[in-house]
């Protein structure tokens, strides 16, 4: 029984597609939130933090067969504003 259960879990895992999209302000775009975090780290006694850039992580739970090209399209159209942000896609 236990073995069958495990097998189903693994099969289920194989059916799930995920993409993780990392979005962050481009270099050269001032990140006041990152700057505030850097100051707070310094004030908390953590020395040696020369810079902080704050971004976001967006996890997509995708239908089987979704391609990276489609995820790229999602990033270009909605998930990132490429005027100010860059993005990276990890498919898994």
């Amino acid at each position, binding site marked *: 029984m236990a073995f069958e259960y495990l097998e189903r879990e693994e099969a289920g895992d194989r059916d799930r597609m995920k993409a993780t999209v990392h979005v962050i*302000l481009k270099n050269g*775009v*001032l990140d*006041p*939130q990152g700057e*505030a975090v850097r100051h707070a780290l310094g004030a908390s006694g953590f020395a040696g933090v020369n810079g902080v850039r704050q971004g976001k992580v967006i996890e997509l739970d995708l239908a089987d067969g979704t391609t990276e090209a489609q995820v790229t399209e999602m990033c270009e*159209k*909605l*998930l990132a*504003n490429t*005027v*100010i942000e860059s993005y990276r896609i990890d498919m898994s």
Partner: protein
Amino acid sequence: MKAAVIVFPGSNCDRDLAVAFRAAGADVDMVWHKDTALPDNVDIVGVPGGFSFGDYLRCGAIAANAPIVGALRAHADRGGYVLGICNGFQVLTETGLLPGALLRNAGLKYVCKTVGLRVETSQSAFSEGYNAGDVVDIPIAHHDGNYFADTATLDRLEGEDRVVFRYTDNPNGSQRDIAGILSDNRRILGMMPHPERAADAGHGGTDGTALFRALAGQLTSA
């Protein structure tokens, strides 16, 4: 002048904008974001302030993909006029109808106060009721009004006389003190300050009235 004001979930200056348009003599229709068409013969579309879709993802990003935006683009492509205020400016940059982007205020704080704006050009249907060099008092109320564009874009905006308003005392870190810009055909204005909140004596100031009157004058005779 026939105006339409788009209403998104979270818009909160839509009725103020409609009141300001009507006070200038416009017929105004409110248009829900799920509609796919604008009323016939609309001269100008107002994209109002507020917090469309809760500012989720980025300010204006989800609104910029709403069903009505197809009709907004078609209106702009036909040479129709568009006025985006505050969140409406953010929506217009997210759609690409105006260049640049609005970042978090450099001071990280939401700023709500009346500020001085210098009118940089009277060469537009929006600003011909002012003289270049006039300083007007208009309220701002935003957390993400820090105008950003790359240097080439900023140079082009200035070279083409498309910066309409600059802050006299920059409240948010905007590059080159920019508070409002025009599209290349000068028929789309995006601005962070709220002229519709300075359009009635009861507001405590009426410096915004000239913008709506100028529009009404232009678009009625057109």
